Structures are given as structure tokens and as C-alpha cells.
């Protein structure tokens, strides 16, 4: 089937999905206890009943939920996600200012995990009972089990305090002024620890997955054919087998994008990374409904876009899917 057609079909599914996410998130957040008017009044230093009613009137909080939903959806489709109670700024502006660092962090962590994980997995498949293979398995178990904020704190203790080679927090050094190249390098320097923290769980998973699929593939008939043609060892591993082993990796990476985005909330909080995660954390504490909803909406869009990209990439790595439609 034509790639453009598939893309359009997936895109229409995606739009419906985004709408559903909007409605569901809106209803969910209104089921949760707590009244934003209380928080706003608290910030103002206390208020009377009348003032509270005024605040509710101002933000439309006194209308029935279903009406609020209608208004919200009507504005959302026009690109207006409302006004933040807490920051007193348009939500879309707040988010757009923060989404860049999050995308940077998440893609860095994911690419890092995919490259390092796949590499370790291929090495481990070379000697399935060897030392490295055992190490990868052990690393995977630890990676799965360790909570992300703990890993983050440990990395901070080791690489920012005991051996201070990386900055402890933030995304750039504000005191530094050394041109665009210096800026990029500075951001990369700040990126390493958070990306490592976020990626470490996935490195382990990809390494295990790669090892398992490599071992299966290495025993297959077409690898025997390659050997019979005279293909040498490294090329069997790095080309004939790996080219097939990346197919499940792409699938899993696409599926895990969502959980990496949610992991980013924790990592950003630990490392004060100025992304959506810290914004989400702060606005949940402040019961800033519009901002929370906006962030949920944007993360849903991120995940949907990631899945769309996976779908397309999948067609390139596996020719059997290309014709399957």
C-alpha cells in the first residue's frame, strides 16, 4: 500500500485518539478531590466566601462539569488550552517554552539506550554463556528493579559530588557566555547525567532483548546460508543477524516511548531539568488544572507522534510489513 495513504489513515486515527485523551483527562481530573479556588485563595493570603465565589466565576469553575468540558474542548480545538491559575499565563505558552528540553532529554535517553543496549546485546550474544552475557543479565535485573529517582540520586552522588565531572542540576550554566558552540556543548554536558539516569533502565532491557533475538536469529537457516556463502563472523553478527534483530527493538522502543516520557517527570525533578516534568510536578501540587491538562495533552500527542514514527520506521526495517499494508 502507498506510504502516504497509510500515513493519512494513521493520522486520522491519531486525531480521534487525541480527542478521546482530552475528554478522559478532563473528566479524570475533575473526579480528583481539591478545589483550585482554595489554592488560589490560599496564595492570595486567605479569602472570604464571596471572594471564592468570585474566583470560581472568573475561571468558570461554578458551571456544571459537562459545560466546562464543552467550553474546554471548544477552545482546545482552536489551540487555546486555557489560562494557568498558578502561573497566570496561557497554558500553551507555558508548555511550548518547556517542551523542547523534555524532547531533548527523552530522545537523548532513548537513542542512548537503543545504541548502547543493542551493542551490549550483540556482544553478549557472541558468547551466550560468557562473562559479558552474565553481566548484561545482572545489569538488566538491577536496571529493572532500581527506582529511577534512586538511580538519579546515586549518579549525582558519584559523578557530581564524589567525582565532580558533571553538573549537579539544570540545563545550562547561566554565567557562561562563549558563543553558540559553547552553549551546545554546555547543554550536552548538563544532559549526560539525566539522560543516563532515564536511559539506564532501557539499556538493560534492550540489551536483554537484543541478546535473545540475536541468539534466535543466529540459529536460523538464513544465517547458515550466509556462512555457506563465505560471510565472515563479524559481518554475520553486525549485518545479517543484527539487521533482523533490530525489528523487535523498534517495536519495543515505540511502545516504551510513553513510559520514558513519564519517567522524564521524575528525572527532571531530580535534576531540575527545565522541562515539562518539573512543570507537571509543580502544577499538580498547585492544582493548576489547565496546566496539568495541557501537559497530559501534550504528552499524549508526543506518544502518538512517536508511535506514528515507529510505524513508518517499521516499514523500512521490515520489508514483510511494507507489502502487508
Amino acid at each position, binding site marked *: 500500500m502507498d506510504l502516504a495513504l497509510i500515513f493519512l489513515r494513521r493520522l486520522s486515527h491519531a486525531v480521534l485518539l487525541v480527542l478521546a485523551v482530552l475528554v478522559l483527562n478532563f473528566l479524570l481530573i475533575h473526579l480528583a478531590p481539591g478545589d483550585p479556588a482554595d489554592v488560589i485563595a490560599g496564595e492570595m493570603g486567605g479569602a472570604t466566601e464571596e471572594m471564592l465565589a468570585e474566583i470560581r466565576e472568573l475561571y468558570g469553575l461554578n458551571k456544571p462539569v459537562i459545560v466546562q468540558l464543552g467550553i474546554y474542548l471548544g477552545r482546545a480545538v482552536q489551540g487555546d488550552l486555557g489560562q494557568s491559575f498558578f502561573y497566570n499565563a496561557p497554558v500553551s505558552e507555558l508548555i511550548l517554552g518547556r517542551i523542547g528540553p523534555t524532547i531533548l532529554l527523552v530522545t537523548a535517553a532513548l537513542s542512548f539506550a537503543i545504541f548502547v543496549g543493542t551493542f551490549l546485546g550483540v556482544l553478549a550474544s557472541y558468547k551466550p554463556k560468557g562473562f559479558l552475557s552474565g553481566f548484561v543479565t545482572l545489569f538488566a535485573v538491577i536496571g529493572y528493579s532500581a527506582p529511577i529517582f534512586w538511580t538519579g540520586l546515586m549518579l549525582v552522588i558519584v559523578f557530581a559530588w564524589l567525582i565532580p565531572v558533571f553538573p549537579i542540576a539544570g540545563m545550562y550554566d547561566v554565567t557562561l557566555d562563549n558563543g553558540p558552540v559553547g552553549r551546545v556543548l554546555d547543554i550536552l554536558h548538563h544532559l549526560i547525567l539525566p539522560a543516563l539516569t532515564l536511559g539506564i533502565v532501557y539499556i538493560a532491557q534492550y540489551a536483554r532483548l537484543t541478546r535473545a533475538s540475536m541468539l534466535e536469529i543466529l540459529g536460523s537457516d*538464513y544465517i547458515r*546460508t550466509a*556462512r*555457506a*556463502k563465505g*560471510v*565472515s563472523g563479524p559481518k554475520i553478527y553486525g549485518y545479517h543477524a543484527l539487521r533482523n534483530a533490530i525489528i523487535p527493538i523498534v517495536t519495543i522502543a515505540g511502545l516504551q516511548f510513553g513510559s520514558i516520557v513519564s519517567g522524564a517527570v521524575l528525572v527532571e525533578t531530580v535534576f531540575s531539568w527545565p522541562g515539562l516534568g518539573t512543570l507537571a510536578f509543580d502544577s499538580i501540587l498547585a492544582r493548576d488544572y489547565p496546566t496539568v491538562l495541557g501537559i497530559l495533552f501534550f504528552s499524549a500527542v508526543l506518544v502518538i507522534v512517536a508511535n506514528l514514527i515507529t510505524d513508518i520506521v517499521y516499514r523500512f526495517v*521490515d*520489508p514483510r510489513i511494507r*507489502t502487508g499494508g
Partner: protein
Amino acid sequence: MAPLLSVKNLLVEFKTRAGIAKVLNNVSLDVHSGEILGVVGESGCGKSMTALSIMGLVPSPPGNVAGGTIELNGEDLLSASNKRLHQMRGKEISMIFQEPMTSLNPVFKVGHQIAEAILLHEKTTKSLAWERSVKMLDRVGIPEAAIRANSYPHEMSGGMRQRVMIAIALACNPKLLIADEPTTALDVTVQAQIFDLLRELQRETGTAIIMITHDMGAISELADRVAVMYAGHIIETGDTKDILSKPQHPYTRGLIACVPHLEENPSEERPYLAEIPGVVPPLTDLGKGCTFAPRCDFRTDDCTGSQPSLSKISDQHSVSCFNLNTVAS
């Protein structure tokens, strides 16, 4: 004339939970340039393992070549370096396999898979190698070869894929082609086409072929000579004509009797569907006697004492059996 391939006293063992399985026992065979040697026997008799040993592809562990020699044009393959083996595989010896459905890499175009073999062994450019792979596809009878070269394996039928395998194997004009049951997984009509193709290509190129099969019909049509294997031993070898018309070993006779026929009157000796009673003994526990003795109608006390050696009964015909005279009468 010195043989192209000479296998002598080959011993291959596999470590299994039940003990050491002696997969090949003193297997010796010669293949001369340009001839087709048929290797027959039932499943598990060591046919494929003989082929993999020659290719140097015995899975190890658990497999292990424990003794013997394999020489191609006088060069010892068992002591050859890995580098040398990589050079020889695909260039001097090629192999095609039983399962065309799974023997091609699913993520590469078939043209690419043929061109790869050419690029590995010859100094040429990618585009020239691609042109040659299109020519090869055409030669193995794939219509619209230039277009089909861009196909992926899953877009082809089993017969087509086996043709591609043959194209890969013959791309560098090897001296020896090992065909390990190349038609087992294919429809009967396609089987005949593949056999015809192999014979035609063999005549054109003069490549020697080791044809592994359990299809006596294919043997009678294709092979110049035949080696019959049983439980890791070669038990009879000779010209195809001799083996088929004057089989000496009780097992060979049984195998030939097993070919179903549709003559008017089935008899006691020649029923429609014959079988050899019993099963192949476990390779981990062969005992010291003739491996076929437990299933043999002509068994005597000699047979359980030791394995008979392969001895000549005429210039070309050798058999390993103690009781040739009783069997013949």
C-alpha cells in the same frame, strides 16, 4: 585421476545428554570433477552432517569433528584457517539447503543476496555484481529477472526461492555444489523442475554435485554414483546403475523395495507399500556389531560381533556386509 573431493575416515561426534552420539563413523567418499554423487539414507543417518562437515559448518558445540580428513583438490579443509574457509565457502564449495522458505534472509532483496556472494569472492563493483546477479536469476529460470532481483524473499514461492538459493550457490562457479535435499519442501511438479535445472546447470558448468536425498527416483535420474548411508556409516557405494539394479546390502535392497509402485499385482515380496521393520538404533549406543543387524533378516552371529568394513566386490562397487552370499541367493 585424483578426485576433486576426498573424505577419509571421517568421525563426527555430538555431545548429548544421553552421552556421545557418533553421528559419522569412518565415512569415506570421493567426488570427481563434473560428476553427481547421490547420497541416500533415511532421516538421521548422517547425510546432512556429512555435507556440513565438508562445508566446515558442523555446529560446535555440541558437534565435533573427531577424526579423519577432508581434502578438496589436495587441500586439507579440516586444518584450514577460518580465513581460508571463508574464502573457499561460496567460491569453491557451495551448498543449497532443504528449506528454501527460511534459507534466505528476509530483510534483503534477493538480488542483493546473490550480489553479496559475488562481492565477497571477486574484485568487482557493486553495479557489476548486481548485473551478474540478474543474469544468474535469469539462468536459474526466474522470469523478468531484472525486476525480480528487487523482490524480497517473502514475495516469492518456495520453488522460486530455491532457484534463488541455487543462483547464490552457483554465482561464483564453484567446483563442488552440495545439495542437501533441495526439493523435500517443494511440490512434486516443482521438484522435477529443480532437478532438471540442477542437471542442466551441471552440464553447462561442469560443477560436481553431491546430491543428498531420500528420493530414489531422483537418484536414478541424476546421479552417476551413489553412496548409501545408515546410522553414520556408508554401507554401500557404487555406480547408480549397479546399486539400483543389483543392490547387495540388505538395507539398500530394503530402501529400493520401499519405493511405492502401482503394478497390477502386488506380491508378498513386492507389496504396494513396503517398509523396513524396526528403527534406526540410537547413535549414543551403537554397540560393536553391524548397526543394521537388529533390523536385518539375514543376521548371523558374525553380525553382532563387529561392524563389517566396506569391501570391494567389483571395481566400482563396495559393500559392508558379512553375508553377501546368503543375501544374494
